[in-house]
């Protein structure tokens, strides 16, 4: 598909006059959002719209003996009270497994629990009323008789024979297990001068989107069609799932995604309560809206992480890393989430540990267990922060053991920049990474030697500061290898349609979605650049299964690399078509013409020949003046999926500089640096802010965020006062630098940047804390790093 003449001349379609590529330009949607004119699902009102409130189980595990809704049904404004059993007549249950995750098992999950609630917060009845407050009033009057069952809460004992099995028909609480043994691990450890072991603990946390999940379902019985307004990252996936379980054809379901207030992976799933809302609309033949409140969000938005991993590293005195070995366990709640499953994060941990390093000796086991807590699934950086914290924690411990500087051990073991293409022991294929260039740039940015000197000087005065380094790789631009090969109807390709309208402006429909990260902007930048049209004249339409090409959406850092490439290719075709028309009108040859600044010009000399609005006028209103037999096509569609590599890996490195108050146990973040390589950068500001936002979420995991369950499976901090999100007061300045290694799997060369920040932030912080505390001979490998954890490690409490 590449135009070889352009490649040879060193000019791609992007290196054009007035190109927007590589430029910070304002996002097209900024004005609308800043003026409060965005449209979120909770803003939407339809005629006869009802509101649903879900009554949720107060127990982590309980049999539902009886539901009495008599009183509730008599309350003012109440339209219906619907139990799980009643709703099951309209919507079928699902099982969250994928065939490429061999052995993954789960139990059928209903939209509303039918006979048993398996986590605190699972819906047991739906109360539909004319207003949310009225529905809440009625919900207080629904009486449910429960028989409390023994909850399984501790993942470390979930597989013990004396622990009850949550789904007896599955035989045990093991959802998934994967083992990997590559190279000669035992020999490598035997040959090592030092073997260092540690146990890494990762708290459960969640995404906390500013806008909670919200859905408005509108079953139109006249059309026999369901319109679903949903803040989602994957409209076509939702269309497929909704149709399948409601007994409809996909053509009977339209998913519309308007503005979305943050997603981070939280909104790439379809939730039981959202499915229930769709079913209620069909059952009641009227629009039904559900907006999760903050307490519900904490109890039902997918959680993530929650791993305990024993790990060891073998190292020679000369700094050579000989082997990694991990034994990981994670608790995922009572069901594997549908349709992407809850085994992906553990699978990613296995894939990614040791990924930046040359050693090919690697053994890994992960076990994914059921428990009576909220479900876990894919959240920003899936598996990356865990794999990175384990790997980089081990590398630092090894360096400390052999008395080597953390920079030096990395220099000796990171895959060389000229070693590509190459692979990892877990089977990952790397096209082109830049670990050493990134490391060099980081050292320069942070002035490493000066920082070490400052650290030593302060230590003499009893001030304990630490430097933490963490290299990482990031999975982006996933092909069908993620979900499609496992049987999920989740598209890995995306499509873009571009057309020139009758006034010379451009309308662009794309299957990627926008949740605040700038999909709309990058699409307009690419299309405007390739076409030679001002960005302000490009209108981008996203998030509507009726009105965009079929595609995956925006997740797994795929929007720019896959949707952006499709936009580039579609715009190239449209450009050619426009030049064909221009050549016909001007009696010129297409290759003598170009489009610059909204007008067709001569390649030689740049003289303007015809403006696009004039060309469009001729095409649409005076086609009779065109040569006989010539049919202009001012609309073009192209689709794209990477084919050479299953994933476009990116890489980077982060550093943290912080101070530990050894008296009170508090950590003060002083500075954070990131160097990353996402290939071609389309909009530097969007990339930098993606990185910073990702870092902040990683810092949240490192220091603050934690879904704290008690031993009865009760989530004890489901509110914004007790669940601590990172806030600006505690965030350090974050400097971002770039190395650019474009992927050749496509013409754009862009890889993803959405998760790089999250991948290594916690690892850098943990390493910095251990560096700060090294004079005390203290090592901490548990996040979040709370004052209690620090004080306990220091033996002060």
């Amino acid at each position, binding site marked *: 598909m590449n135009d070889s003449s352009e490649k040879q001349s060193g000019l791609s379609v992007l290196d054009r006059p007035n190109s927007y590529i590589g430029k910070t330009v304002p996002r097209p949607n900024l004005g609308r959002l800043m003026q409060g004119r965005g449209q979120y699902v909770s803003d939407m009102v339809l005629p006869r719209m009802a509101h649903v409130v879900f009554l949720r189980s107060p127990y982590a595990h309980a049999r539902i003996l009886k539901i009495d809704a008599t009183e509730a049904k008599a309350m003012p404004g109440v339209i219906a009270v619907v139990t799980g059993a009643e709703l099951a007549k309209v919507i079928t249950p699902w099982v969250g497994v994928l065939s490429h995750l061999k052995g993954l098992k789960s139990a059928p999950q209903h939209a509303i629990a039918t006979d048993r609630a398996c986590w605190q917060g699972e819906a047991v009845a739906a109360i539909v009323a004319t207003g*949310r*407050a009225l529905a*809440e*009033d009625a919900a*207080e009057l629904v009486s449910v008789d429960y028989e409390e069952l023994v909850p399984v809460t501790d993942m470390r004992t979930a597989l013990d024979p004396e622990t009850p099995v949550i789904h007896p028909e599955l035989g045990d609480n093991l959802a998934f297990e994967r083992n990997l043994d590559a190279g000669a691990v035992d020999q490598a450890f035997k040959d090592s001068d030092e073997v260092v072991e540690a146990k890494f603990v990762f708290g459960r946390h969640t995404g906390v989107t500013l806008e909670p999940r919200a859905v408005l379902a509108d079953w139109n019985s006249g059309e026999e069609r369901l319109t679903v307004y949903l803040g989602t990252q994957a409209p076509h996936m939702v269309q497929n799932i909704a149709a399948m379980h409601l007994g409809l054809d996909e053509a009977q379901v339209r998913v519309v995604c308007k503005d979305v207030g943050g997603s981070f992976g939280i909104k790439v799933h379809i939730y039981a309560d959202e499915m229930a809302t769709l079913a209620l609309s069909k059952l009641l033949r009227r629009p039904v809206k559900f907006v999760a*409140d903050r*307490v519900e969000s904490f109890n039902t938005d997918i959680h993530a992480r929650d791993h305990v991993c024993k790990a060891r590293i073998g190292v020679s005195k000369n700094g050579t890393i000989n082997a990694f070995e991990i034994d990981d366990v994670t608790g995922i709640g009572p069901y594997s989430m549908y349709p992407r499953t809850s085994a992906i994060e553990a699978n990613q941990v296995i894939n990614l540990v040791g990924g930046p390093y040359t050693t090919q000796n690697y053994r890994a086991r992960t076990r994914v267990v059921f428990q009576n807590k909220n479900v876990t699934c894919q959240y920003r950086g899936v598996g990356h922060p865990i794999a990175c914290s384990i790997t980089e924690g081990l590398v630092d411990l090894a360096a400390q053991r052999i008395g080597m500087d953390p920079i030096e051990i990395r220099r000796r073991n990171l895959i060389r920049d000229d070693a590509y293409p190459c692979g990892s022991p877990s089977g990952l294929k790397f096209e082109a990474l830049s670990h050493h260039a990134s490391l060099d740039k980081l050292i320069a940015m942070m002035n490493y030697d000066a920082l070490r000197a400052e650290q030593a000087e302060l230590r003499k005065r*009893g*001030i*304990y500061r630490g430097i933490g380094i963490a290299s990482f790789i990031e999975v982006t631009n996933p092909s069908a290898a993620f979900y499609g090969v496992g049987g999920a109807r989740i598209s890995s390709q995306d499509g873009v349609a571009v057309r020139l309208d009758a006034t010379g402006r451009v309308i662009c429909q794309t299957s990627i979605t926008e949740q605040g990260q700038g999909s709309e902007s990058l699409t307009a930048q690419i299309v405007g650049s390739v076409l030679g049209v001002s960005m302000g004249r490009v209108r981008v339409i996203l998030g509507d299964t009726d009105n965009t090409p079929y595609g995956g959406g925006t997740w797994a850092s795929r929007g720019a690399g896959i949707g952006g490439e499709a936009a580039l290719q579609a715009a190239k075709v449209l450009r050619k078509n426009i030049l064909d028309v221009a050549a016909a009108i001007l009696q010129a040859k297409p290759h003598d013409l170009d489009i610059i600044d909204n007008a067709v010009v001569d390649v030689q000399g740049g003289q303007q020949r015809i403006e696009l609005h004039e060309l469009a006028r001729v095409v649409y209103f005076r086609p009779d003046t065109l040569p006989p037999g010539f049919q202009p096509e001012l609309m073009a569609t192209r689709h794209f999926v990477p084919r050479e590599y299953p994933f476009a890996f990116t890489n980077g490195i982060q550093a943290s500089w912080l101070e530990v*108050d*050894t*008296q*009170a146990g*508090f950590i003060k973040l002083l500075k954070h640096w990131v160097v990353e390589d996402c290939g071609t950068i389309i909009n530097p500001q969007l990339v930098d802010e993606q990185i910073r936002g990702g870092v902040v979420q990683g810092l949240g995991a490192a220091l*603050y965020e934690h879904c*704290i369950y008690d031993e009865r499976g009760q989530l*004890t*901090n489901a*509110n914004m*006062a*007790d669940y*601590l999100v990172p*806030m600006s*007061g*505690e965030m350090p300045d974050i400097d971002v630098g770039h190395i650019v290694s474009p992927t050749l799997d496509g013409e754009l060369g862009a890889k993803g940047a959405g998760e790089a920040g999250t991948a290594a932030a916690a690892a850098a912080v943990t390493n910095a804390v251990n560096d700060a505390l090294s*004079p*005390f001979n203290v090592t901490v490998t548990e996040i979040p790093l*709370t*004052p*209690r954890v620090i*004080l306990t490690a*220091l033996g*002060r*409490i």
Partner: protein
Amino acid sequence: MKASAFSYTRASSVTDALDLLALHGDQAKVLSGGQSLMPALNLRLSAPALLVDIGAISELRGISESNGVLKIGALTRHVDILRSPDIAKHAPLLTEAIAYVAHPAIRNKGTIGGSLAHADPASELPACTIGLDAIIVVRGRNGERRIQAADFFTGIYETVLSPEELLVAVEMPVAKSNSAHFFHEYARRKGDYAIVGLAASGILEGDVFADLRLGFFAVGDRPLLAAASKHLTGKPVTASMLADAQAALDAELDPQEDQQASAGMRRYLARQLMARCVATLLGRPELDARPRA
């Protein structure tokens, strides 16, 4: 979540408010800045039949000083305390402490009377009133009561205020030329409720505390005026006096365990805060040496 249905009325005067409270008793709740009450209503943790909004009673608003007494009206907002030159001059502890109360949006609405009547044991202002030996003035239909701050708070969200009374003002002696104050709290993030905090004021005669009031908060079910300060007054503080004071403090604390801290961690941090306070007020950093490796 949405609040349960409730009735709402806006009182035009203190007398009007007191009549309404007398009529509705514990069915009514006083709405001041709403920064604690509104979330509680929305979470349905509280479902009063009637809200009596006192926001329009201008006589409850404002800061004044006369005859060595600083008076702050109950409706005075946190932001007004933060910016008041009178507070900065006569009760600088409050100026310092108020910056730790939540965030600007909350400080713009929240009131001192609301905070004191709410009596959250982890909040800053109740401890400040204890540290400053303030008097809390409440009014009922039968007249006014003047209550020592240390006697006002009786438990978690509990005070001696009856449902038919209104907290109208807080009064405190103005700072003297040899007054000194200290405020610090340990919190996970700026603006969070404290894990442990200390609002202290003292009178310094040379290098000796003539008086020292230590108002600890988030160490029990109410703010605590630490009796342990008696070990630190009357003569120059020594390391062993400080150790005695810390031990005495430990004995009078009854901290709760929660997600942020165990009871033992709270005791530890309270002892550290005491040392930090004494070292700061006396300008003697050696009394609060950081642990060295």
